[in-house]
């Protein structure tokens, strides 16, 4: 039960934090079409977060709902992976982050549609289609930028390289993951790691890019040990509920 709560928070926090980051682009994207698609992805992700965090709150049974979990936990209690909390950087960095993450999330949700735990299976069934689109969209941008101009190629390489050290965390296994896989609720991402790597490799090949050199993995997000960026994000995201604790909106 603790493991399931933890697992739901991880799923919800990943979507919540990445949704927040994408929302930061609003009005600042390279073209209106891109503004639209970034807002659209953000919306999908916030929707997923709402479902997962509401489910976590219901399971916990202490009267916390998704809003309470989203807006009233501090950094040590957030369970998202480090990748999603990284700042947007330039558009190539944003797309590198999205490409690494959505490819993983798509494979994950595809497995989770078969979760023995109905709330997860239900959300995954709907979200897997959304995320399939995020995956395609970000992969297309990786190809366009990688095989575009000299400048876009350099930026895409830099973006992929900058984000790469946060990818191994996506495949980290620990007590929570093991317990969830064991129970048929979740999945050990190790089972789709080779699918992931060949999917990433295929897109990079189409983008005429090499895989970034291996780097020492940076871990910790799943245990609340984040990068310095998450705290700043939470300052913004939680401002209103923190400032007006008695209000509803």
């Amino acid at each position, binding site marked *: 039960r603790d493991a399931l709560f933890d697992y739901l928070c991880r799923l919800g926090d990943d979507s919540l934090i990445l949704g927040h980051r994408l929302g930061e682009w*609003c009005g600042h994207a390279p073209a209106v*079409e891109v503004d639209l698609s970034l807002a659209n992805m953000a919306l999908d992700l916030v929707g997923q*977060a*709402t479902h997962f965090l509401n489910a976590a709150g219901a399971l916990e049974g202490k009267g916390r709902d998704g809003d309470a979990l*989203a*807006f009233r936990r501090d950094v040590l209690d957030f369970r998202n992976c480090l990748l999603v909390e990284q700042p947007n950087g330039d558009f190539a960095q944003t797309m590198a982050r999205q490409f690494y993450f959505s490819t993983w999330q798509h494979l994950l949700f595809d497995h989770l549609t078969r979760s023995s735990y109905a709330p997860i299976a239900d959300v995954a069934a709907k979200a897997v289609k959304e995320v399939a689109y995020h995956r395609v969209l970000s992969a297309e941008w990786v190809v366009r930028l990688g095989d575009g101009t000299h*400048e876009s190629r350099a930026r895409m390489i830099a973006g992929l390289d900058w984000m790469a050290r946060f990818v191994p965390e996506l495949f980290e296994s620990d007590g929570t993951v093991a317990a969830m896989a064991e129970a048929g609720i979740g999945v050990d991402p190790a089972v789709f790691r080779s699918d992931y790597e060949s999917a990433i490799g295929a897109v990079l090949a189409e983008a005429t890019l090499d895989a970034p050199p291996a780097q020492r993995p940076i871990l910790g997000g799943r245990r609340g040990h984040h990068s310095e960026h998450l705290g700043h994000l939470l300052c913004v995201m939680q401002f209103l509920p923190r400032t007006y604790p008695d*209000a509803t909106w």
Partner: protein
Amino acid sequence: PAKLAAFEARVAADEFIEPKDWMPEAYRRTLTRQISQHAHSEIVGMLPEGNWIGRAPSLRRKAILLAKVQDEAGHGLYLYSAAETLGTSRREMIEALHSGKAKYSTIFNYPTLTWADIGAIGWLVDGAAIMNQVPLQRTSYGPYARAMVRVCKEESFHQRQGYEIMMHLAAGTDDQKRMAQDALNRWWWPSLMMFGPPDADSPNTAQSMRWRIKRDTNDDLRQKFVDITVPQAEAIGLTVPDRDLAWNDAKGGYDFGAVDWEEFYAVVRGEGPVAKERMKARRDAWEQNAWVREAAAAHAEKRARKAEAA
């Protein structure tokens, strides 16, 4: 002149003019200006709302706001496309915006200071926009009229959501009530300005109405807006910041105070409170991301060449 007469007859008969039809240059120019200005407003209008996406106070409000800005980007797209059918490229329109030649709604030159401003924008700004736009569903230029049908449907949804935010705040804690009233105080007059200068100072109105680019005068729309909005404010216990506001039985509408037209013209000239910030944000988005658009074009060209070669 024969063409002109035929054109004017079609317009008078409420027929749609389509892109390939002959049209007077002034009609084309006026429409291009009006539609592109409308498109720019959608895009610039994402900035004051984008300012609060990260701070939306609940997951539901965050989702609603994201859906709203997504709609606005969509409106921008239809409208740019409609304007392009008149022969000006999107790039030209955007460059005209960035050079200050093209305008956007004055309202987006005011800052969003509290969450209540998101409510006020939905309620008042989208409310005023709808008032302007509903008649345009029957405007004489086909692509514009069709774009307006979609836009209006979504805007009225936004307007209701904005009003709902205000209603919630006005029924909330003292702090929330204060935010709501303060937002109304700040957005009320700029909203009235959205209908443009008084008819007496609006020399192009007659021509635009004859061409059915416009279907009501500025003052008529403004009056209608006041008449609809004042009772909405009262219903949720907010006070419209106008001491001269009074019901006038004779005209069946409200009398209201004088709009500060000096302020309006200053904002039109680009001197609004956050005008520099808005234009800088748009210019930066365009210029600093030029490499993305160039890459997309270069890649598309490579693809096309490969397809040809195959």
